């Protein structure tokens, strides 16, 4: 009698384990959201196991085993598959690694399934999220991913004549006569400013322009001041600005004050700093096909394509967009990094999100592209 309860418990446990192995839901997939902390299974008998196996191997950079989880019907080579994950040409993807993922089934039958995966990458510019819909098919008793062919921009060998403009800076030496070789800092001006409360804190944003005839390295700082005239907090635009502004160029800026609310703020002190820097006017990047759409998750997103019209590779393109209401007031500034390099004469898609509560207010927008190239300092 005293062994009856343990024996029953063991029997029930074993029974449930067997049931778990052989019985699945009707669709053959688990229901709900799964986060990427699963264990690698020897054989992917469900789409969920297939995606877990694939992404765990990608995280571990076990490329051979990861590629084995891809269906041969995909028509993709292992090299292209690896490049899809590791990036190339000094792009942001080549400096990032898959930190985690979250997957959920979209639909499934006995032979095929569609999974939506939120991929979280850690990158030098902060966490980056990528959403992918991955198609799975059942091959025998194993589920495999159908990996889409990677569209690698193919740049034909050609000579692109570049008559680009460049500003060099020659500074005076200590031995120069006083006042003989002074060069003034570029003249920049904040042309609009708006302070709002967002979910995460206060945000100060607007636009700044270089009114001078020389390039400027611009930083915008803001200080929140309370009713007694005391500063509450001071922050800078950090990477939410195109720092190098060519003559007459306009850039949005955004300054975040986390965990602060405007009800405690009496005024905002703005301070723009500009220094003279060497710069180049090349390459010119066109921002094409800009349109605001609602994505499958119901978010308002500004989509578009960056077109490199020059002959130099832009390794890490950075998009900053300002959104205006019907009165032309800046109501939000969003930014986003493109994790693929922008090769000469080629284009890359981009997307930046608009907060849900502002999407109805947005009447127009303006996009600028910040560019980081490895062969430039």
């Amino acid at each position, binding site marked *: 009698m005293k062994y009856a309860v343990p024996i029953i418990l063991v029997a029930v446990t074993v029974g449930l384990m067997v049931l778990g192995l052989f019985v699945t839901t009707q669709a053959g997939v688990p229901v709900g959201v799964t986060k990427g902390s699963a264990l690698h299974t020897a054989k992917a008998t469900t789409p969920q196991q297939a995606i877990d196996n694939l992404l765990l191997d990608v995280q571990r950079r076990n490329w051979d085993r990861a590629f084995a989880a891809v269906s041969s019907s995909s028509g993709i080579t292992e090299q292209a598959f690896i490049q899809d994950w590791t990036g190339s040409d000094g792009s942001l993807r080549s400096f990032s690694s898959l930190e985690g993922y979250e997957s959920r089934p979209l639909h499934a039958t006995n032979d095929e399934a569609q999974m939506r995966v939120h991929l979280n990458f850690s990158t030098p510019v902060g966490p980056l999220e990528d959403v992918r819909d991955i198609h799975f098919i059942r091959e025998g008793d194993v589920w495999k991913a159908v990996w889409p062919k990677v569209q690698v921009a193919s740049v034909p060998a050609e000579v692109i004549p570049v*008559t680009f*403009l460049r*500003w060099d800076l020659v500074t005076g030496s200590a031995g120069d006569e*006083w*006042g*003989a070789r*002074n*060069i*003034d800092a570029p003249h920049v001006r904040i*042309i609009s400013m708006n302070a709002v409360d967002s979910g995460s804190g206060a945000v100060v944003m607007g636009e700044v*322009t*270089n*009114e*001078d*005839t*020389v*390039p400027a390295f611009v930083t915008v700082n803001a200080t929140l001041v309370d009713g007694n005239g005391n500063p509450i907090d001071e922050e800078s635009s950090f990477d939410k600005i195109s720092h190098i502004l*060519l*003559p*007459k*160029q*306009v850039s949005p800026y955004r300054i975040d004050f986390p965990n602060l609310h405007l009800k405690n703020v009496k005024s905002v002190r703005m301070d723009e700093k500009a220094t003279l820097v060497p710069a180049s*006017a090349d390459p*010119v*990047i*066109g*921002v*094409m*096909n*800009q*349109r605001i759409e609602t994505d499958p998750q119901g978010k308002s997103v500004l989509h*578009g394509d960056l*077109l490199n*019209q020059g002959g130099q590779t832009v390794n890490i393109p950075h998009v900053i967009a300002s959104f205006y209401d019907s009165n032309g007031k800046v109501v939000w500034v969003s930014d986003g990094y493109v994790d693929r390099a922008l090769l000469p004469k080629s284009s890359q898609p981009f997307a930046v999100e608009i907060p849900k509560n502002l999407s109805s207010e947005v009447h127009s*927008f*303006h*996009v*600028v*592209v910040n560019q980081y190239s490895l062969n430039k300092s």
Partner: protein
Amino acid sequence: MLRRFKIFALIYFAATWAGLCSAQDLRVPGSASAGAETTVSTTGSGKATFYLVGPGASRKSDVTLGEDIHLSAQDMQTAGRYLAILCADTCHSSAFYVSAGKPASLSFIVHPSRVPVALNDAVSGVAFPFDQYRNLVLTPVNVNFQLTAKDTSLFSRAVRTQNGIAWFRTTSGKSAGPVRITASLDDLTAQRALQQVASDPCNLRITGQRTKIGILVQTEPVHDCAGNVLPDGTIVTFTATGQDGKDTVDAPIKQGIARAQMDSAGATTISAASGVVMGNEIRVGAQP
């Protein structure tokens, strides 16, 4: 109270009388120039100690009362207030001023180094005359300021220094290009360069035509309101709005003209802006 006052007065007069009785005195120069030798004369007899305290030097020496004390040029290089002290039984002191010598150099600063054309009171310059020992010359002198562009005089004015400073302020010229600014005082001259640059664009106009690969849009030569060509590298933002969405290109001006390639296939409206200046708007029909 009255008794205390009487005692104090008695001590004061006694001390003064004792000082006079020693017969030591010094006479400082009425005017002295920086870097010029001078003398301090003494009266009385016997030995004494002489101290000289100035803004750039201090010295102590044993002297004989009744003889002149020689102050070398090196002692007197810095202009300012000097104190001569002679101590025997008691100490006597006297102050004198050393003024700057003849102007030997001219420091000249001009602001700004770049200025848009035709801007009121935009250019200013300040000149400081110094003597050979870098003392600011406070004696009023006339400094001539002159602005010249391509051998044409834009501005000329003689300004008398006040407290060692002469300055001017003027409106920038109407033509872009380098301007030479000269400050002169007798045979001394200091030159600075100023770059006059084009102002904001005026009448920014664009034209566009459809090509095989899209729409080629370009500006007419971009000038400011004074007719100066805007410098190369100035950004013109082209915006094309069509059915496919919006295209924007930030194109730099090259040789006076900014060009951009837009890839819109449908009917498109294109506008241009440079900084805060808007240009005209054109409509280009759909690709046939």
